[in-house]
């Protein structure tokens, strides 16, 4: 089920919110009778789990089976550790064995569904064999729920996490707002909140905060990302016709689209979490304001970076094993991050493109510190703006690899960008912005002054890019929600955005981060 669907907004979300709070209300009311109270709290958890299964199974029922197996295996592993802990039989060796099995199972599952065909293809190419591809369908969100459980199973094996009751563990993994496209929530963030029964009654402040996050996120996705996607998709279909300007505009539009799409989804996820009185971790903090790639990655997909830092970078030794080793560890993290995004050489190269610059940036900072010249660049200085622009452009150009279906296409896009040419293709590119909002103007021009039609599309595209740039440069959703006072005017603005999004829902759209 998509957040941006009528079924979700008008049926699913009201049912799940009302059901959750109503059943918990019965539990809270029966406080004097602890057994009865616990029964209702458990029923609320069963209800939430069932609703999350519906949410996930709605895409494809077989995906649900894979997720349930994954949950059961990880839970049983934790339960076995628990048994050994109780009997005081857990040795260092058995911990390592559990760790190995847990990591192996989760990575194996991810490998099979996400990377098996990619691996086979490359083996075929390398050894000139002809092994058949299995054309395995990638279950939605598998990278997200696998990483969540991987973090749990590692912490559990190392004795850093407790064993949780099954319903709470299953709800931690399947909690529908974060299930499909993150953020990657850690067990010690969500389970304690689920265990805190005082959070199980509606809170108007949290609900309104969540409502704002949801509406603003929906707006970013439906009104901005989906409109930008029309131009981007057209541009990538016609790569061979692009001139320099249009190629740059396609990439700029894609950079905006990717941010609005993914951060919009995360805003909605955080918003729904708030409606439940639960806090999910922030995943974006205005990443395009960053002045270095290192900083950008501290603001972009924060929970993924956190995961890799905690479970890859530190175990590899972090920065404690010398300069070279530190650089290698950083590079490995970004290489894996690239691969996490997709089973394709384009993603591997994209990860490398990030890793190389981050290592370089890290080295630059280290040497600065050694020379004790580490002074913050002054705001509005040339260097301050130059570093921002360089970061922005580098990330934008690296996204060519991220968006291209294959390396050949990416190379062609780079050729289009770096070989100066002008064919006026930008007019045709703008024409692909076939949105209902421009329809009346375009039709009127077609009837009365056909020569003006292309100007209307160009104006529409320019306006869309300016609005996008405004939102990139301005406050992010978290800042807006924190700073804004609840006034009549603000309420009306939210109502207009919500209504505009709702009337836009009948247009089909897909989330870019579902396949990762």
């Amino acid at each position, binding site marked *: 089920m998509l957040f941006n669907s009528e079924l979700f907004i008008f049926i699913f979300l009201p049912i799940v919110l009302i059901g959750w709070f109503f059943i918990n209300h019965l539990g809270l009311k029966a406080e004097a009778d602890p057994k009865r109270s616990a029964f209702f709290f458990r029923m609320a958890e069963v209800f939430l789990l069932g609703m999350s299964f519906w949410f996930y199974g709605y895409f494809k029922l077989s995906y649900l089976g894979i997720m349930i197996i994954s949950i059961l295996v990880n839970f049983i592993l934790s339960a076995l550790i628990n048994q050994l802990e109780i009997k005081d039989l857990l040795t260092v060796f058995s911990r390592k064995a559990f760790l190995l099995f847990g990591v192996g199972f989760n990575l194996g599952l991810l490998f099979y569904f996400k990377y098996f065909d990619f691996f086979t293809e490359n083996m075929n190419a390398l050894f000139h064999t002809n092994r058949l591809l299995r054309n395995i369908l990638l279950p939605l969100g598998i990278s997200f729920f696998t990483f969540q459980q991987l973090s749990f199973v590692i912490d559990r094996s190392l004795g850093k996490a407790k064993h949780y009751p099954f319903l709470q563990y299953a709800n931690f993994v399947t909690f529908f707002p974060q299930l499909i496209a993150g953020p990657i929530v850690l067990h010690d963030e969500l389970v304690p909140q689920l265990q805190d029964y005082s959070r199980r009654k509606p809170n108007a402040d949290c*609900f*309104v905060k969540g409502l704002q996050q949801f509406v603003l996120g929906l707006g970013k996705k439906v009104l901005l990302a989906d409109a930008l996607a029309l131009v981007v998709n057209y541009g990538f279909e016609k790569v061979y016709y692009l001139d320099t300007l249009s190629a740059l505009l396609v990439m700029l539009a894609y950079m905006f689209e990717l941010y609005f799409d993914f951060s919009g989804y995360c805003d909605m996820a955080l918003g729904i979490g708030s409606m439940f009185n639960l806090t999910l971790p922030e995943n974006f903090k205005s990443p395009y304001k960053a002045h270095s790639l290192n900083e950008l990655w501290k603001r972009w997909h924060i929970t993924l970076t956190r995961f890799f830092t905690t479970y890859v970078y530190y175990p590899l030794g972090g920065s404690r094993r010398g300069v070279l080793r530190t650089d290698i560890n950083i590079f490995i993290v970004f290489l894996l991050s690239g691969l996490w995004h997709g089973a394709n050489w384009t993603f591997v190269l994209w990860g490398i493109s990030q890793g190389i610059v981050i290592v370089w940036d890290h080295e630059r900072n280290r040497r600065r510190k050694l020379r004790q010249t580490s002074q913050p660049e002054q705001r509005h200085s040339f260097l301050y703006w130059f570093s921002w622009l360089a970061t922005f452009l580098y990330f934008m150009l690296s996204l060519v690899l991220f968006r291209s279906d294959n390396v050949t296409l990416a190379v062609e896009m780079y050729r289009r960008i770096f070989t100066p040419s002008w064919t006026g293709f930008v007019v045709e590119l703008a024409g692909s912005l076939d949105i209902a*909002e421009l*329809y009346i103007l375009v039709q009127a021009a077609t009837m009365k002054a056909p020569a003006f039609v292309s100007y209307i599309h160009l104006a529409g595209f320019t306006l869309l890019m300016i609005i996008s740039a405004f939102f990139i440069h301005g406050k992010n959703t978290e800042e807006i929600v924190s700073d804004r006072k609840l*006034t009549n005017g603000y*309420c009306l603005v939210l109502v207009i955005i919500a*209504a*505009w999004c709702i*009337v836009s829902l*009948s247009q089909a759209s897909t989330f870019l981060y579902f396949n990762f």
Partner: protein
Amino acid sequence: MTSSGFLKKFILELLIVLAVIAGVVIFFDPFYHYHKPVLGMKQILNDKEYQCIGSLRNFDYDALLVGSSVAENFNNRWFEEEYNCTLEKAIRASGTTADLTYYVNEVYQNHDLKHIFYNVDTSALYASPKTTFRTSGQPMYLYDHNPLTDIRYWWNKDVLLKKIPYQLVYSYVADYDEGESYNWAKWKSFGVDQVKRAYTPSETIEEMRKSDSDLELLTANLEMLTALVENHLETEFTFYFPPYSLVWWDEAYRTGNLERNLYGQEQTIKALLSFPNVKVYYFCDDADTILNLDNYMDTLHFSEEITYQIFEDLGNPEYELTLDNLDDHMENMREIVDQIEQEEISKYY
């Protein structure tokens, strides 16, 4: 403002805005899902997937033109003047029997029909006997009878910002001939070049399949057609087989489907002619039309002139089939296919 006050205000204002939008859509109703045009607006029919089912349910008429895209270019007025009726089109791009009979059965729910003109596509005789609306991604909220799904119509940016303005402009400002519903021919070019772009003969000729191949599909489709006729003996049915171009027949020959197709046609015609309220016209063997590729834009879509010619010849005994002349027509068709393979196709390829 307190959070709870803000929340109440937000919900109330949002409901008002959504109610106003839904009200506008229901009032103008560009897909005719609820009612006929209001305020003297014209019947603007140019989007069959969205408008056909609504117009069939809600308009007033007593004759129906049923068929695939090849039937879209008839002007309703030709029939209305000739047969003294009010006609609507029931058009489905694929023209499968299941989809078309679904339309007609929906019509019979609240209409009495004097006349049905039915375009029989040979491919439809071997199509799946299940409706394809859902599987082909049609807007099911317009087809089902579930009022809850109508929200996809009420709150729909395309309806609000495209369809309603279009309906208003073509009702009050621009010219629009209501008889030309779903007409596409005026936007297309016809001729040999177009056909050659659409079709290249296969270099291999497959073994001719038996005439009774796919008999189960044929039987299922025939059952639907004959049930329609049998259940409505009060309606006069005119079935016709449209004139597909020589390259369509060439393709049927090269893919080994020629005998199967002719058998399907023959069985259908025999079944239909057993009813007293049926007439059948056969234009497939009209050599003058089908051997001239200037009449076509691809293997089977013909020009508006040919469409008009068909209309004029509905009633012409030369094209009317009876159990007595059926074999002659089938034989004639086989001879034309021979001629296509021996002489005609090589003129173009």
